[in-house]
């Protein structure tokens, strides 16, 4: 038994620990990308972040835009009022005018 600061460990404990730790490299090898993937990955990440920014921006614009109000009927009324009062093209029939 090895002992340090009042804590003991079985003999050969750290040899077995080392073997277990070294096996991490065999059981989790996928984290180490190949040279090509490592070179291309930053460009993919850049493109993905650009697309995400555009999508987010358009989503925010759509959510914050003020909906357009249909004012066409109101504008027609305005025109009608102008016609009635001003009659700039003289479309009122003579019969409708009051003879003095």
């Amino acid at each position: 038994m090895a002992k340090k600061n009042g804590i003991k460990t079985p003999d050969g404990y750290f040899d077995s620990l080392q073997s277990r730790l070294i096996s991490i490299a065999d059981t989790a090898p996928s984290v180490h990308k190949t040279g090509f993937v490592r070179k291309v990955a930053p460009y993919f990440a850049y493109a993905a972040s650009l697309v995400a920014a555009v999508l987010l921006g358009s989503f925010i614009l759509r959510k914050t835009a003020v909906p357009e109000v249909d004012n066409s009927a109101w504008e027609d009324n305005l025109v009608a009022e102008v016609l009635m009062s001003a009659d700039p093209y003289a479309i009122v029939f003579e019969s409708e005018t009051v003879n003095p």
Partner: protein
Amino acid sequence: MDANELFQRIVKEYSERIWWTARRFVNSQEDADDLTQDIFLKIWTALPSYRGEAQLFTWVYRIAVNEAMDRLRREKVRAALRFASLDAEMERRIDNDPWFDGTPAERSLSKAILALPEKQRQVFILRYYDEMPYEEMSQILDTSVGALKASYHIAREKVEAILKDEAAGLNL
């Protein structure tokens, strides 16, 4: 040196030292094993980002301390969800540790460390048990040497006060 060779070198050079540090933080043999496993998995995952600017020891130890702190924070949250205290749980671990073979004073010291705030606990463990120089600790914890010396001094005083109180209590 490729990633596999570098990883093997790290395991051979630092695994025992890191295990002892982990053991001090979690106060249990099994949890120290788990934590060491997690630390080395993190090291293996982060190995492609190691550029050699930092010293290998500093880089490895920074990962180890951060992983240990993350684990303790997670355990604290889990304990809080059970309406329990992590410090009380740690005290139980120290009391019931089948691998503890030290003096009552050593056991009391382990318990007194639990009363320290997170940063002081880190500094105390790295300085007192690992005998790490302040300059190395400064690079690992991203703290100035002066601040570390002050932290260690305060931590030491707190631990001494706790041990004195305990001794006085036993004499009553």
